[in-house]
């Protein structure tokens, strides 16, 4: 699988040269667009990350975990995963940090870690991408799609915890 990425680069560059494209100036142009895109993203990132930091530091996340744990264990989700599941919709790097921590604490092949990996892999940072996608738009009625996405993330999590017991 790792072979695929260098192969893609090779094929695209070779084909572009064959088509007489100036590969260097195109590549730098694309990278330049990446710079302006990241710059336009930065205010959003700053707001979301500040929110995450406050959420953690104020003890809100601990309270929410305590409050939600019984409901989650009713759905068959181990208590140890509550924090990961709560952070995942907000921040990709935050949830990745918890995932790393979970794997280190419980061992890579434990049920908890496998479950955490599948939960992490089968959900997205819903709030984060909604903030980025719709930053420059006037789209109304975003609550419904966000709610639907969160609901199906929860569904994926419940399914992941059930599947990891079998597979």
């Amino acid at each position, binding site marked *: 699988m790792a072979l695929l990425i260098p192969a893609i680069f090779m094929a695209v560059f070779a*084909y*572009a040269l064959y088509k007489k494209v100036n590969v260097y100036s195109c590549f730098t142009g694309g990278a330049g667009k990446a710079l302006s895109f990241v710059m336009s993203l930065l205010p959003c990132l700053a707001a979301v990350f500040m929110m995450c930091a406050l959420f953690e530091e104020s003890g809100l996340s601990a309270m929410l975990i305590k409050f939600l744990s019984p409901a989650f264990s009713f759905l068959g989700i181990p208590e140890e995963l509550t924090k990961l599941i709560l952070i995942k919709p907000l921040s990709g790097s935050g949830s990745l940090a918890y995932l790393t921590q979970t794997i280190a604490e419980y061992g890579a092949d434990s049920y908890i870690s496998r479950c955490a990996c599948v939960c992490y892999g089968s959900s997205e940072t819903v*709030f984060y991408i909604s903030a980025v996608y719709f930053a420059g738009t006037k789209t109304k009625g975003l609550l419904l799609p966000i709610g639907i996405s969160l609901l199906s993330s929860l569904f994926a999590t419940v399914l992941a915890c059930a599947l990891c017991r079998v597979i």
Partner: protein
Amino acid sequence: MNAVFAAVFIASAALLMFAAPDKFLTALMGGARSAATAALTLFCIYAVWMGLAAVAEAGGITRGVARRFAPLCKKIFKTRSDEACEAAAMNLACDLLGAGASTPFAVKAVAAWEKEGNFYAQKLLFIINAAGLQLIPATVTALRAGAGSAAAADIFLPSLICSALSLALSAALFISSERIRQKISERKRAAFRWHF
């Protein structure tokens, strides 16, 4: 986002006022600093993939891919914009491959649909991306292999099943909710006409 953001800020400020008022500003600064670090990481990823995409675009490769995808795209997203379809195709391809650079393409597609006034397509693309469908969960596999897992890849199948089913669920819910809304507004319009 507006409501969540304000609620978290106000609630945290209220809690920290009593617990540890000095931690409030430190938390904010820490958040901003991790945003700056994240932006740097994102630039590294995007510079590589958007550079490659620009080369592919100049060579006419993305146009070829998009042309094949266009009929399906126009049907799914109810759009006429070729630009948006090309961006959406790149976005979904990056998602599936786990290339990590799917967001810029999604933003491009959303901006094109904003010009078209196609809010349905914007929301649908968000729904599809939010399900996190991925053929190869590369990050997670690498993490597990690094932690000494005996079979790092055995989460492939459950991950794929979970995200595919979650995508099916959210797409079905969204499309049916849009249909219901359309029906309600049609009925309202009919009632309005009848009234006069």
